[in-house]
Structures are given as C-alpha cells and as structure tokens.
C-alpha cells in the first residue's frame, strides 16, 4: 500500500526528467504507475470480495490519533480500479493528445501522477485526518492541473475558483471530522465510526452537515456546482480524469463511505435529497442549452454526480448497489465521452456543436466510442449505465416511504433530461446538419483513438455481464442499514421499471426534438439566483473588506507602527509591574570600574545617534554603541558573544552603508517640532522602562536557574565544551533551525525587493564586463582628490599595476586602490582559513558555524569593496540561493539522520576513530548541522552583497548614474530633502 503511494511520489518527482528524455511519449511509461494500482486491486479481487482485503496500520502521530491506516474493501477496490485504470488510460491518451512540442509537459505529467497518488490514498485510507490530507492534496493538484494553461486568464480564474470552493468544503469537512473524532463515542477511524456512529445530538448532526458540505463541494453539487463547468478550462485529459472519473468522485466516495453509518439520520436524508435532486435536475436542464460539447458534458457530469450521490446516499441496500454500479459505469462512459470530445477538438479544431457536421462519416473511430458511451449514459441496454439505472428504478419502485417516492420522481425527471442532452450530444457531435458544411478534419494519430474506445467498450462489456458486477459490489451494498439486497440484471421482466424506462426514452426524445424551443426558452427565463454570480460578488465583497481593514490597520507609517509597539511594551510592563508588585533588589554598580566607562561611551554615542542629522553619522554612532557592547561582553568574560557581536556590528555597518548610498545624506525635516517632542518623551519612557526591567529581572527569579546545568549537560549530551555553540546546535537546535529558516526568508525578501528582474539570473563574471560600456562606480564628476588616481601616460614597469584581484580592471580608475587590492589578495585566503578554523573549533572553543559564516561573509565583502561587483562574481561564482538552500537542506538533513538510527530529530552523537600516527579524531555529528548554518549565513551575506551592492550598482549604471558616494555628497545636492545649509544661512541653525 505504502509502496504504491511511494511509487506515485517517485514517479511524480521523476516525471519532468522522463518527459525531457522521451518527449510526449514519456506519458506511456508514466501510465504504468496508476496502472499498477489498478492491477494491485484486480489481483486482490478474491480476497476483497471475501472481506479479507489487505490492510495496513502504521502509527504516525499518535498524539493526534493520526495513523497511516489503509484497507482495501469493496468500495475502495472499486475506486482504486477506477482511479488507477482510468488514470492509466488517460495518461496513455496524453501521449498523443498534446502536441509533440508542447511546453511544460514535465510539470503536467508530474502533477497528474501525483494527483493519481493522492486519489489512491484518499480512497484507501481508514483514518479521517489522513483522508483530509489526501483530500486537500487532490485539491491542490487539481488547482495546478486546471491552471495548466497559466497564460490564459480564464484558466487562472477557473483554477482559483475551484480551489477556493473545494477548500472551503474541505475545511468544513475537517471540522466535521474533528467533531466526530472528539464527540462521545467518536473516533478518527472511519471503520469504527461506521460500525458505531457516535450517539445523536446537535453536535453530531452539525458534524454530519459539515462532512456533507465537504462532499457536495468536491462533487460540485448545488449550490457549489458552478466551479465544475469553469474547470473545463483545463486540458481535456484533465477534464476526463479529474472532472469525470476521479476527483469529483471523491465526494460520491465520501457519501458512499459514510452512508452505512449515517444514512438513516434525517438531516443526512434531507441534505442528500435536496442537493442531489436539485443538482441532477439543474445540471441536466443547463446541459440542454450548451453549445460547447465539453461544457455540455460538464453540466451533464454535474447532473450525474447529483444522481450518484442521491443513490449511494440512501439507506437502502438495493438502491446503494445500483449507485455503486453507476459509479463504475459513469467513470467509463463519461471519461470516454470527454476523450472523444478531445479527439473531435483536435481533429476538427472546434467543439461548438453548431459548427460541427458530418463527423460520423469522417471520424468513425471517434463516433463509435461516442455513441457507445452516450448510450450507456442515457441508459440504453445493454450498457452498464442501463443496468445501473434499471436497478435503481427497480429498487426505488419497491420502496414506499415518501422520501423514496420523491427520489424516484427526481430520478425519472433527471433521466429524461439525461436522455435528451445525451441525444443532443450525439446529434451535435456527429450528425450531418442542414445548412452546415461538413467539417474538415485533420488526420490524427491512431493512438489517440485507443483510450476512448477502450473505455467505451469496457462499458459495454460491464453491461453484458451484470451478474459479475453484482457479485463484486454486493458485499459493500450489504453493509447499508436497510432493505433487501438488490440485483443487477439486463432483463428484470415487465413491470413499472420497464414502463418508466419507456417513459424516459419517449419524453427524452420529445425534449430532444423540441431542443430549439427549449434553448430559446432558457435564454428568456432565468431560473433563480446565478450561483456563479453570487460567488463572484462574495469574492468581490471579501476583497473590499480586506482592503478596508488593511487601510485601517496598516497605515504605512513607520513611526506609527514603532510607536504602537513601544507603547504596548511600556504599558504591559508597567501594568504587570504594578499588578505583580515587582521591586528592584540589591544592586551592585559594576564588576570592574571600566564597565562604567564603556557604559558612558555607549550612552553618549546613543544620545548623539538620536541627535544626528546626517544618516552616515547616525550609522557610525550606532556602530559605536554596538562595539561598546562588544567591550562589555569581553569584560564579562564572554569571548564568544564578543566575537559574534563584533562581526555582526561590522556587517551591519557595511549593509547600512550599502543602503545609504541610495538615500539622501540627511534625515528628512518633515516631522514638526511638536511631534519631535512626543517622540523624545516616548523614547525616554521606553528607556526608563527597559532600564527598570533590567534592574528587576536579576531579582525576579523564583526557581533555580537552569543555566547551572548547562556546562555539564552540554558536555554529556552535546559533547562540547563551548556552551554557547552547543546551545545553538544541540540544546536549542530547533530554535536555530527556525532562525536559519527566517534568515533564508529575509535574504530572499531583500533580494526580491531589489532585483526587479529575475533573481535567479547568472552570476556576473569579469569576462562579461564590457570595457567600452563604462566602468563600475564611474561617476561624472569625481572629487578633486579622486583625480590623483586617474591613470596618466607613464612608463609602466612589469611589477607595477599588476592584476592583484580578479576584476579590479572593471572599476573606474579613480575608484581603484592599489593598497586595498594588494591587501585583499593577502588576507582573503587567510580570512577563509580563519573561518574554517572557527567552524571546526566552535564546539569546544569560541566559534561555530554562525561566526564562521560571518567571517567568510566579511571576506567576500572585502572582495566586493576592493573590486566592485565583477570581483564579487569572481570571488563567489555561485547564486546565493544555492548556498541558502543547500545550507538549510544540510541542517535539516543532519537533524533527520538520527531518525534512521533510532534516535530523535536533531540528536547528536559522537564518532571517535583512530588514524594511526595522526592521532584520534573526535567528530560530533552536530558539526554537519553547523556547516548548514555556516552555508546559510554565507548565502545571506552573498545575497545582501549581490542585491544591495552589485544589483544596486548595476541599476545605477543602467540609469546612467553611479550610486552616489556617501563620503562625498554635498548637502546642496540632496534635493527633496532637508536643506540644512539653507537653514543655517537663514539663521535658524540646526534644529
């Protein structure tokens, strides 16, 4: 069972490669995958009928009662054969349906196979939560398949509509499952739920309604029916599979699955009757006026789905048997009809029945399956559809409760409509019409005709041997609560059912003959509210509500956000201080007097930062506060923290300056005097609050600190002496995992904001640099002091002006610095070796992946600063996404490896081995986790340099101006901003 699912998953992943290798013929090997599921079911037929089908129960998440339990009973067996068999046939059809040069076939094939796998899991699982998972998987995959032609607006809209409607139903169903699972006597196992339904009561009733909402949304019943015709934007094989045989059957399956347990509940019966009945009639009625053959079939499918749910939702055994037989019949004839339409579409270039004429003569091998399948659909003997419908009529006639009579009436009316639109389909597709010239058809490959014929003839054979169907399906129908077992037969003798069949045929033919009048009448009379329009209106209202809410809560003003956050912090802290009676305990001013000196420097720098008018000045002053903290850490005896803080501070400075190049030199003057006072007051309050917290916390401890345990635990379980690093990679490894994921998201966010063009572009190497198109960092008017570095014509000796770094020549001459270049060359590898040392040493002495990544990042930064963006490309000719992704993969992978050895996720182990003369090697597995962290940090740095550095440079050059020079900007040139010089001249002085 799990092997089959794994096979689907593997095939889905491998599909793009297979399609690349074999082209469209790659569909054929892939068809074997769903085919194998059908073969598996067929092989197990005997056991299944005897009630000894294979089962499997693997505990997955016991805390949630989620287990991978699967079982193959008669209903699952039927569904697996349909899902797998039709899936294989339709995939085979795809090999000829798509043009040989069609694009995105790899993705299509992969999603298609994945969908088949999800469907397989859905119909075989015995756990409601797992069923929900597969349910939503089918929703997502169908979204992708409907939206296959993503460049068409209609396809995108239809896909979105389908996913929203079915997810809505899916969520309702999940709620229902949760209630059923948590209710008294409830369970998350389907078989237990059916065997012993939880005792009635309002809650269980609500659960039934919710589960049915899921089923009817998936099966496109009224009032959710509108998404299915929209989904016809998908390629025809998708329509044939998802919207005829597989996904829409999930709702029918769910009803059939739960009916033995719940079909006697009144709410169940009413919902089934109303939605199923309304759908059957409405679908048939709408199908009568469609001109597009595919839409005609779509509305027909809607009608048939209502019919199926109406039958399998009844409590009676005979009706259920008829319903099960019709599930099989419908899968065959409807898939065959869709595929036939696909052939017609391909051959004639249109699906409009007003333009098609004379295809019966020109496309005989499309006509045969079309006629056979349509006869099965309208219920003519000796096809499978007839057997099912006869059994349904027979069973319903023998029941005399009011509900069954109502069902019978609906079925008869619906069947009349079905007969009419079925005949209209045949006439529209194949007949020679008056006044319409014969449609010219292209010759299609023989392979294209195989699939519809196979399915149509299968429907014929299934109908010829009704006893076989009865034997196979009866065991499940017998689990229904009421009535006599039913029978499937071609000839039930003279009686009311036969009479009704006659009525259906005659009335259907009459409707067919009066089709023009009916079309016209339908155009004139609109029946009830249009569900599609209601849906769109709802979505529009939702959109406008969300826009309104956003505009109220997200003002877009940074001061407002910050002010709110800070104010909340202050209010909450003082509230809890007041309520909790926090007090400041004994205080010690300092451990060493020098700490006070550092604190004064930090305080002064912080104050000046807030006062600074110039952005660069503020950043530098901010850096001083940061380096002051480095000193404090170092004085406190925390070399690890000091090292990390120093590196982070350095990198922050670099990033700030990269950003500042694109900002005006001075802060804006906009805030008025009054608001400035408010800000100062808020800042003071926050400062006082934070100081208060810092004073309270050391004395607020009520239990012993766990920090005392860390040194020993870190060594015993993390095998390292550096507590900080062991904390990061072992004790709090989950936190680190989360943090590097956030880093990755942040890096991607920054890059996607800066990269207006595709981010996954190539790395710019020096060989891409075109000397004639200008140099990096050239500017029109370099400062006077820059003139010094301009090259003059002078005799150059071999040892002068050499190529110290790879891409220095790409820089504008006055931007180059020989000292910088030579120094970069000398220290680059040294820094890298230092980074490697930190990476390896981190477990026992200061260091670790994070710090090592920062050092390597600074090494790259030095290369960029010395040689510009081409130098960066030479230094690290990889895309940052590769580093980020492989880093996260390595960390997560290293975390998962212990599972294979019976450990828990992120557990660390130690490996010791001897290398002879070289001594012993002591390898702790967390090193691999740390290497992952290292790669993520390097990737982040590279991403920042590439986006805020190189890409900003490139955009500046493309706009014809270099990024402004922070060090040299003139106050006069910062146009839209503050004009401090003018202010000063006006006598106001800096405010």
């Amino acid at each position, binding site marked *: 069972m799990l092997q089959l699912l794994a096979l689907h998953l593997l095939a889905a992943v491998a599909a793009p490669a297979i399609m690349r290798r074999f082209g469209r013929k790659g569909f054929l090997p892939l068809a074997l995958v769903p085919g194998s599921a059908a073969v598996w079911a067929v092989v197990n037929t005997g056991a299944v009928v005897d009630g000894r089908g294979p089962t499997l129960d693997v505990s997955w998440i016991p805390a949630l009662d989620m287990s991978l339990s699967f079982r193959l009973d008669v209903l699952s067996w039927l569904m697996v054969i349909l899902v797998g068999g039709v899936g294989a046939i339709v995939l085979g059809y795809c090999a000829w349906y798509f043009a040989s040069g069609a694009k995105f076939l790899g993705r299509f094939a992969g999603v298609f196979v994945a969908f088949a796998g999800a469907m397989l899991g859905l119909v075989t699982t015995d756990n409601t939560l797992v069923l929900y998972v597969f349910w939503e998987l089918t929703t997502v995959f169908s979204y992708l398949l409907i939206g296959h032609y993503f460049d068409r607006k209609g396809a995108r809209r239809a896909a979105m509509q389908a996913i929203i409607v079915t997810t809505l139903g899916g969520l309702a169903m999940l709620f229902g499952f949760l209630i059923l699972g948590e209710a008294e006597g409830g369970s998350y196992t389907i078989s237990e739920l059916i065997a012993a339904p939880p005792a009635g009561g309002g809650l269980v009733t609500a659960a039934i309604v919710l589960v049915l909402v899921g089923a009817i949304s998936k099966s496109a019943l009224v009032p959710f029916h509108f998404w299915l015709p929209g989904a016809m934007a998908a390629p025809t094989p998708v329509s044939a599979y998802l919207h005829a045989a597989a996904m829409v059957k999930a709702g029918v399956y769910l009803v059939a699955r739960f009916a033995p347990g719940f079909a006697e509940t009144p709410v169940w019966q009413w919902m089934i009757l109303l939605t199923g009945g309304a759908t059957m009639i409405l679908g048939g009625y709408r199908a009568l006026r469609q001109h597009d053959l595919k839409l005609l079939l779509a509305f027909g499918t809607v009608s048939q789905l209502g019919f199926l749910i109406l039958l399998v939702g009844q409590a009676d055994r005979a009706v259920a048997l008829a319903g099960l037989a019709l599930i099989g019949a419908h899968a065959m004839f409807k898939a065959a009809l869709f595929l036939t339409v696909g052939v017609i579409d391909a051959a004639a270039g249109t699906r409009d029945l007003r333009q098609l004429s004379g295809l019966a003569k020109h496309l005989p091998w499309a006509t045969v399956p079309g006629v056979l399948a349509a006869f099965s659909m309208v219920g003519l003997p000796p096809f499978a559809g007839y057997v099912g419908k006869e059994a349904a009529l027979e069973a319903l006639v023998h029941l005399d409760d009011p509900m069954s009579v109502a069902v019978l009436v609906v079925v008869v009316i619906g069947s009349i409509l079905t007969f009419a639109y079925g005949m209209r389909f045949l006439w529209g597709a194949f007949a020679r019409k008056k006044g319409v010239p014969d449609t010219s058809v292209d010759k299609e490959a023989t392979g294209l005709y195989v699939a519809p014929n196979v399915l149509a003839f299968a429907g014929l054979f299934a109908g010829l041997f009704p006893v076989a169907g009865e034997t196979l399906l009866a065991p499940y129908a017998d689990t229904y609560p009421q009535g006599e077992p039913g029978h499937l037969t071609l000839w039930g003798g003279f009686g009311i059912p036969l009479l009704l069949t006659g009525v259906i045929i005659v009335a259907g033919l009459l409707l067919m003959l009066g089709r023009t009048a009916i079309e016209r009448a339908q155009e004139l009379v609109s029946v009830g509210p249009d569900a599609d329009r209601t849906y769109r209106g709802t979505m529009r209202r939702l959109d406008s509500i969300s826009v309104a809410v956003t505009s109220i809560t997200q003002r877009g003003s940074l001061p407002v956000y910050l002010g709110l956050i800070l104010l909340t912090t202050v209010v909450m802290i003082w509230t809890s201080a007041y309520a909790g009676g926090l007090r400041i305990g004994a205080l010690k001013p300092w451990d060493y007097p020098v700490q006070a000196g550092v604190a004064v420097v930090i305080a002064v720098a912080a104050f000046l930062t807030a006062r600074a008018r110039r952005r660069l000045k503020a950043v530098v002053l901010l850096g001083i506060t940061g380096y002051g903290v480095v000193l404090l850490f170092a004085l406190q005896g925390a070399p690890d923290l000091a090292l990390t803080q120093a590196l982070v501070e350095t990198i922050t400075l670099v990033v700030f300056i990269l950003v500042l190049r694109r900002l005006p030199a001075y802060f804006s003057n906009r805030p008025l005097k009054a608001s400035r006072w408010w800000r100062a007051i808020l800042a003071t309050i926050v400062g006082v609050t934070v100081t208060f917290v810092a004073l309270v916390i050391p004395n607020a401890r009520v239990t012993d600190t766990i920090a005392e345990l860390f040194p020993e635990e870190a060594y015993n379980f993390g095998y390292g002496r550096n507590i900080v690093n062991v904390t990061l990679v072992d004790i709090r490894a989950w936190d680190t995992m989360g943090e590097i994921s956030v880093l990755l998201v942040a890096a991607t966010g920054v890059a996607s904001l800066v990269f207006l063009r595709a981010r996954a572009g190539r790395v710019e190497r020096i060989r891409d640099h075109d000397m004639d198109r200008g140099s990096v960092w050239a500017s029109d008017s370099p400062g006077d002091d820059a003139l010094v570095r301009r090259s003059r014509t002078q005799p150059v000796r071999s040892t*002068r002006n*050499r190529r*110290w770094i790879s891409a220095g020549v790409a820089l504008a001459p006055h931007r180059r610095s020989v*000292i910088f270049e030579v120094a970069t060359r000398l220290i680059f590898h040294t820094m890298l070796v230092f980074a490697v040392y930190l990476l390896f040493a981190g477990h026992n002495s200061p260091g670790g992946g994070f710090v090592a990544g920062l050092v390597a990042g600074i090494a790259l930064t030095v290369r960029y600063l010395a040689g510009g963006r081409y130098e960066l490309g030479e230094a690290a000719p990889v895309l940052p996404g590769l580093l980020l992704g492989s880093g996260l993969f390595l960390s997560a992978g290293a975390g998962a490896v212990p599972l294979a050895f019976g450990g828990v996720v992120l557990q660390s182990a130690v490996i010791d081995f001897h290398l002879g003369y*070289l001594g012993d090697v002591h390898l702790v597995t967390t090193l691999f986790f740390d290497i992952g962290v290292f790669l993520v940090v390097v990737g982040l740095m590279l991403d920042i340099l590439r986006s805020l550095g190189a890409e900003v440079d490139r955009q500046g050059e493309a706009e014809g101006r270099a990024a402004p020079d922070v060090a040299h900007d003139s106050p006069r040139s910062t146009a839209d901003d503050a004009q401090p010089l003018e202010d000063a001249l006006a006598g106001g002085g800096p405010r």
Partner: protein
Amino acid sequence: MRVSGSRKWLEKIPMVLWLTVLWVLFWGDLSLANVLAGALIGLFVMTVMPMPRIGFEGRVSFIGTAILLGKFAVDVLLASVQVARQALRFGHDPHGAVIRVPLRSHSDLYLTLTAVLCSLVPGSIIVEAHRLSGTLYVHVLDVPAAGGIAKAKADVLAQERRVLYALATDADIAEAGLPPRPWKRGRTDGPDPTTAVGPSGPAGDDQAVTR
C-alpha cells in the same frame, strides 16, 4: 603565455605555507595531523576560491625581516607616546601636513606594505596612493614633532628600504637605486652605500600642503 602545471603549483607554496602556519597557530598545537590538515585546508581554500595568478618573485631575508619588525615595534611604541602626549597637551595646535613621497621601488606589493606599516605607526597615515607612479600621499599629524617635512619623507623612504631589505631580490633593490643589504655587502660588490642612502631628490622638491 602558457605556464607549466608544476610552476603553477610552486607558486602556491608560500601562501599554503603561511596558511598552514596560521592553522597550527589557531589550534595552538603542533602535531603532524594539524600540519597536514592545515596544508590541505589551505590548498582547498586556494583551489576552490582562487585569486588571479601572480608570482612572488622576492627573496625573504630573515635578518631583514627581523630588522623590519623590530624597528616597526620601536616606532609604534615611540610614536604612540608622542601622539598621546600631543593629544593631552591642551592649547597646542598640531601642525599637520600631507606630503607627497615618490617611492623608489617599482612594485605594488612593496608600496602596499610600506603604506600599511606607515599607517600603523601613529601620527602618520596614508591618504592616497598612486599605483602607476608609485607615489604615496602621507598625512603627518604634527610636522614639527615629526622633525620637519624632510625628515617625515625620509622616514617613509626608510620604511620602504626596510621592506625591500626584508623581502625583495637583490635585483629589485638595485633597480630601486638602493645599495645591497648591508650584511651581504662583503660578498657582493655593490655601489658605495654612503652615496645612495637617503632621499633621492633635492629637499626643495618636497611639496607640502599645510593645513
């Protein structure tokens, strides 16, 4: 110009040696395993993230290096005291200047080392370097304290001489117009040392910009 593979590898040796020494120093443990690991990691780093090929054609002299480092240490010490004294003398306005010093060697490497060492000595800092003419622009914190413009310039050139004596080949030294290393003078017949030491140009050539 095609270079044979062995030559390519030979050029890497000094850097690999340096990285190996560094690695051993990082671990603080001289063992065969550490030396091997250091060499391997050095080679790995240089192969994975290469820099353009550039040969080192100097010749390291241990005596010269010792002199260079020793004098540098003394300079740093003395200059630190001097600058600290200036900083603490209230009322004293230091008389700073940017002076132009054309170096005598013809190598980017020696220019850079001279510049870096000069910058590291408190009181003087390199504000600009012109690579094609090999000229340094040095800011001197207080010209009188440095002994006048000529002395400041001579100090920079002396620094360069020590760098050359520590690292350059005899040919490079000769090309720069300097006498051969004093401790080798017995073996090689070089020009008379007394004539070549000191600033090469007339003192009036110094261009000083006083602030």
